[in-house]
C-alpha cells in the first residue's frame, strides 16, 4: 500500500473545509466539500482548477499549501500527510517541494524591501550552501524567467511592472526546484496583453524543469491553453473533471456550458445572442440541500432539489449531474 501512495505526487482524500460564521447567515459555511483528486507523480503535469468566486478554489489552494488545515479529510504529498507537519524541520522540507504563486504581484513583496532579498532568503533557508552557490542559484532562477540579475539587483518592488513582479515571484518559487507549483490566479491581475508571456513561461517550466503545476483560475480560455486536465468547481464541490479538450469542447454539466457561453469572444462577429440569468443571492445557494445549481439550471428535475448528485463517471470524465446517471 505504501508503494502505491508513493507514485502519486499529491492526493486529496475527502478534503473538506467548514468555516464557522457568526450571526446573521447561520452558523456554518462549507467552503470545500469532500474533494477527491490525484496528481500522478510519474509525469509532471499541469492541471487547471476552474471556478468562480465562492467556488472554494482558493481555500483548496491554501489547504494544499499548508496554510489552512482541512476540517476533514487528508492531503497527502509524496506519501506524507501534510496536516501532520508540526515541527520546523519538516515544514522546511515541505517548503522545498511545494511553492506558491499568488494573485496579486504588487502585494507579493514587501514594498519596503528590495525584491532580491526574498530570492536570497529562499536560497539561504531552504538550500544552504556557500555565498557563491547561493548567488548562482539566484542568478539562474532569474534567468529562467527571462530576466537578468543585473536588471533587478538593488531595486524595490515599485520599480517593476506587474508582469515583471510576477516573474520574480515565479523565480523565487523556482529556486529550490520544487516538484509542485500552486498558482492561484497568477495572471488575473496582469494586463491582458502581457498574460501570455507568463503562461508560456509556466508551460516552459513544466517541460524543462519537470515541475507539476496546479493552475487555479476563473478563466476557461487560459485553462484550456495551459492544461490537459481540468477540474471545475462550484460552491465547494467538483462538478466536472476530465481532459480539457473534452470538457471544454463538449461540456457535460449545465454549469460548464454556462461558463463557456459567458466567455466574451474577441470577435465582434460572434456576439452573444441570448441573455442569461444571474444568481441574486449567493448565500442562498450555499445552504441548499440538493444540487446547488438548481436555481439557474435549465434542466432541473425533482430529484435535483432533494439530493446532491454524486460524481458519475463516463470513461475518464467525471460529472456531478443526474442527467448523466
Amino acid at each position, binding site marked *: 500500500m505504501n508503494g502505491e501512495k508513493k507514485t502519486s505526487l499529491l492526493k486529496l482524500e475527502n478534503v473538506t473545509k467548514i468555516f464557522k460564521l457568526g450571526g446573521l447567515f447561520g452558523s456554518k459555511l462549507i467552503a470545500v466539500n469532500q474533494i477527491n483528486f490525484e496528481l500522478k507523480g510519474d509525469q509532471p503535469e499541469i492541471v487547471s482548477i476552474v471556478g468562480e468566486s465562492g467556488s472554494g478554489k482558493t481555500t483548496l489552494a491554501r489547504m494544499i499549501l499548508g496554510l489552512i488545515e482541512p476540517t476533514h479529510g487528508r492531503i497527502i504529498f509524496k506519501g506524507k500527510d501534510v496536516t501532520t507537519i508540526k515541527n520546523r524541520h519538516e515544514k522546511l522540507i515541505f517548503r522545498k517541494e511545494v511553492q506558491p504563486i499568488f494573485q496579486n504581484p504588487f*502585494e507579493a513583496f514587501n514594498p519596503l524591501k528590495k525584491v532580491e532579498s*526574498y530570492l536570497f532568503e529562499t536560497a539561504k*533557508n531552504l538550500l544552504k550552501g556557500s555565498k557563491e552557490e547561493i548567488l548562482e542559484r539566484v542568478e539562474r532562477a532569474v534567468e529562467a524567467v527571462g530576466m537578468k540579475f543585473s536588471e533587478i539587483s538593488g531595486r*524595490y518592488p515599485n*520599480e517593476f511592472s506587474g508582469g515583471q513582479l510576477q516573474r520574480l*515571484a515565479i523565480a*523565487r518559487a523556482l529556486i529550490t526546484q520544487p516538484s509542485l507549483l500552486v498558482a492561484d490566479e497568477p495572471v488575473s491581475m496582469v494586463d491582458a496583453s502581457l498574460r501570455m508571456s507568463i503562461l508560456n513561461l509556466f508551460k516552459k517550466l513544466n517541460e524543462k524543469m519537470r515541475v507539476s503545476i496546479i493552475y487555479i483560475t476563473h478563466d476557461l480560455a487560459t485553462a484550456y491553453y495551459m492544461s490537459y486536465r481540468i477540474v471545475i468547481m462550484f460552491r465547494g464541490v467538483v462538478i466536472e473533471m476530465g481532459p480539457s479538450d473534452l470538457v471544454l469542447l463538449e461540456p457535460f454539466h449545465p454549469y460548464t456550458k454556462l461558463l463557456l457561453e459567458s466567455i466574451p469572444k474577441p470577435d465582434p462577429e460572434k456576439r452573444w445572442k441570448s441573455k442569461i440569468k444571474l444568481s441574486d443571492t449567493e448565500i442562498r445557494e450555499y445552504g441548499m440541500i440538493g444540487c446547488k445549481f438548481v436555481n439557474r439550471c435549465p434542466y432541473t428535475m425533482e430529484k435535483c432539489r432533494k439530493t446532491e448528485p454524486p460524481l458519475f463517471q463516463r470513461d475518464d470524465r467525471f460529472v456531478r449531474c443526474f442527467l448523466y446517471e
Partner: protein
Amino acid sequence: MLISIKDLFKANKEFQFGFIVFMIILVLAVTSHFSPFDPRSWNTVPKDLPPSFRHLLGTTSTGQDVFWILCHAFKNSLILGVITALISNLVGTFVGLLAGYKGGWIDRVLMSLNDTFIALPSFPILVFLAFALKGNLNMLNLGVILSFFSWPWGGRQVRAMILSLREREFTFTADFSGSSTLKIVFAEHLPFVLPWIIANFINTILWSIGMEVGLAIFGLSSLEIPTIGTMIYWSTQYQALFRGVWWWALTPILSSIFLFVSLFFISSAITEYLDPRSRLQRIRSRE
C-alpha cells in the same frame, strides 16, 4: 529603516525648529549638573529679582534662581517622561506582539488584561496614590506608576497592526522563503510598526510630563523636586503673576509650550519620514 537626521533637517522646516529647540532644552537639562545651587534649598539667592546678568531669568519668591531651577526642571521632567515611555512602550509592544502572533487563549487573556487597564480611571487613582505616597514620590516611582496607565494603548494598537500585517501576501512569501516567525517579525513587519512605536514613545513622554504638571498644580507631586509642574505650583502659590514676579510665572509656562511643540514636531517629522507611503514616494523619485 535608519533615520537620516540630515535628510530630515533639510526637508522639513518643522523638524528643524523642533530639533533645534529640543537640543537647547537637552543642553539646559545637562547643564543642570553644573548648577551652583542645590535645587532643593530655598533662599540661596535674594528673592524676587528681575532678570539680569547674574540671574538670567530672575529669582523666585522662595529665593531660588529661576534659570537653574528651570534646568533642573527640564532634566527631571525629561527623565520622568523617558522612564514612563520606556516601560510602557516595552510592555505595550510586547503584549501586542504576543497577542497578535499567538492568538487563541493567549490573545484573549492578554486583551482582557489590556482592556481592564484601559478602563481604569487614571486621574482619580493617581490622585489617591499621590496622597498615599506624598513624601516618597520621585521621578522614578512616578514614572513607573504612570506607565501602568499608558501601556495598554500600545497593546491594542500593536496587536491590530500585527493582525493586519499577518494577512498580507508578502508575509506568506516570506514564510515560503523559509523565514522563521522571529525573522518575519523583525524583517517584514517591524518597518511598518516602527513609525508608530517612535511616535508613541514621544507622545508618551509628552503625556507623562503633562500628567505630572496636572498633579503638581494640585500640589500632588513631589514638591521639593523642581519640575515644570512644581514650578507652576509654587509660582501660583506665591501669586507670582499678581505680585509682578512675572518671570517666575511665565518661565515654566513658556518652557512647557516649547518642550511640547518641539517634541511634537520631531515626532510628526519622524513618523512622516518613516511612514511606508512616503518612503515609497521617496524611492520612486529616485528613478
